[in-house]
C-alpha cells in the first residue's frame, strides 16, 4: 500500500485467560481507559476489570416485561369488556382469570424481545466491519487466543510507548490495528 493506513489501536495477543486478566489490570493501573479485551468465551469479572460499571439491560428488560404484561391485560380487557362485549356462556365480561394466560405469554414475549434486541443494540451489533478484523491473527480470538486492545483515542496513547508498554506484559505478539 502506498499510503500508510491510519492507526486504530494497538493490540497484544495472549495465550491464556489469566495472562489477559493480568494485562488488563496492568493497563488499567497504568492509566489507560479506552481499552477493550477480546476472548473466545466469557470470562467472569473481565468486564469489571476493564472498568465496566454494569449494564442497564436488566432494568430495560423488566420494563419490557411490564409493558407486555400490562399492555397484554389491557388489550384483552378492552377487547372483551369495552370494545365488543359478547356474552359467552354467562361468564363475566371481565373474566380476569381467563386473561391471565395470554397476559403471561405477552409478558414473556415482550421481555424476551427486549432482552435480545436490547443486548444487540447496546453492543452496537450488527457491525460486520470492524478494524480489529484487519489483524490476521484475530481469527483466533474466536478459538483460543486472548487480545488486549488500546485505542488511539486514549489520552495516554502514544504509538511507541504503548507498544513498549504492551511488550512488557510478555504477550505472544503486539500488532498494530489499522483503521
Amino acid at each position, binding site marked *: 500500500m502506498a499510503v500508510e493506513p491510519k492507526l486504530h489501536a494497538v493490540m497484544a495477543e495472549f495465550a491464556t485467560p489469566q495472562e489477559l486478566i493480568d494485562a488488563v489490570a496492568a493497563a488499567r493501573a497504568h492509566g489507560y481507559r479506552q481499552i477493550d479485551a477480546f476472548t473466545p468465551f466469557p470470562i467472569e469479572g473481565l468486564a469489571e476489570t476493564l472498568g465496566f460499571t454494569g449494564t442497564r439491560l436488566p432494568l430495560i428488560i423488566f420494563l419490557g416485561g411490564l409493558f407486555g404484561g400490562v399492555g397484554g391485560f389491557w388489550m384483552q380487557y378492552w377487547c372483551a369488556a369495552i370494545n*365488543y*362485549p*359478547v*356474552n359467552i356462556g354467562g361468564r363475566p365480561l371481565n373474566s380476569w382469570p381467563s386473561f391471565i394466560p395470554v397476559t403471561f405469554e405477552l409478558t414473556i414475549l415482550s421481555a424476551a424481545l427486549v432482552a435480545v434486541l436490547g443486548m444487540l443494540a447496546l453492543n452496537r451489533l*450488527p*457491525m*460486520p*466491519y470492524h478494524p480489529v*478484523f*484487519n*489483524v*490476521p*491473527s*484475530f*481469527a483466533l480470538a474466536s478459538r483460543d487466543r486472548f487480545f488486549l486492545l488500546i485505542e488511539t483515542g486514549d489520552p495516554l496513547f502514544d504509538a511507541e510507548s504503548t507498544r513498549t508498554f504492551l511488550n512488557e506484559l510478555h504477550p505472544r505478539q503486539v500488532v498494530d490495528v489499522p483503521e
Partner: protein
Amino acid sequence: MPQIFHRSFNTISKVSIASVVILLIGLTGATYVVGWSPYVTQEQIARVQPVPFSHQHHVGQLGIDCRYCHTSVETSAFAGMPPTKTCMNCHQEIWFGSSMLEPVRESYRKDQSIAWERIHNLPQFVYFNHSIHIHKGVGCVSCHGRVDQMPLTYQEHSLLMGWCLDCHRDPKKHLRPASAVFSMTWSASAEPSELGDRLMKENHIRGVEQLTSCSTCHR
C-alpha cells in the same frame, strides 16, 4: 484475517434492517388500504345494468315511494325486486317507444325476468331482515344512501361486518320516526336530541348485548 465485509457493510446492515421494518409496516398499511378500499368492497362503484335504471329520476324527480317497487320491504326479509309488470304500469303509457326500454318490453313479452345486476349482496351466513329494520325505525337511506341522487345505483357503504356493528353497537343515532323511514331528506339534526332515546323505548329496541350477540345475525 482479511476483512470479509467492506467498511460500507456496517451502514448497509443498518439500512437493510431499517428497510425490512419499514417494508413490513408499509406492507401492513398497504393491506389495510387495499382491504378497506372500494376495490374489495365494491362501494361507490356504479354497475352497468341491462337497462340503465335511474333512481335519481324515479325517486328524486318523480317522487315515487320506495314501496311502490320494493313491495315486501315492510313484511319480509327481502325488500323484493319489482316484476317487469311494475315497470310496465307506466311504461306502456310513456316512453313506450324508447329503444332504451326494449329489454323491459322484451322481458314482458317473453314473461322472463330482467337479469338485474345485484348491488347489495350479503354473504349467505348472514341473516338479514329488512322488515325488522324498517319497523324499528331504521331509514332506507341509512344503509342505501341517497338513492334519490343516484343516476345508476351503487353501493353507498362497505357492507363489511364492522359497518353493521357500528349501528348495532349504538343504534340510537340511526333511528327515525315511522313517518320518516322512507324519507330521503329527513334529518335528525332538526329533531330534539332525546328523540333517539324515546324511539329506543317506543320501538322496544333491545340492549347492545343482544344486538351484538353472534346469533342475532348468524343463525
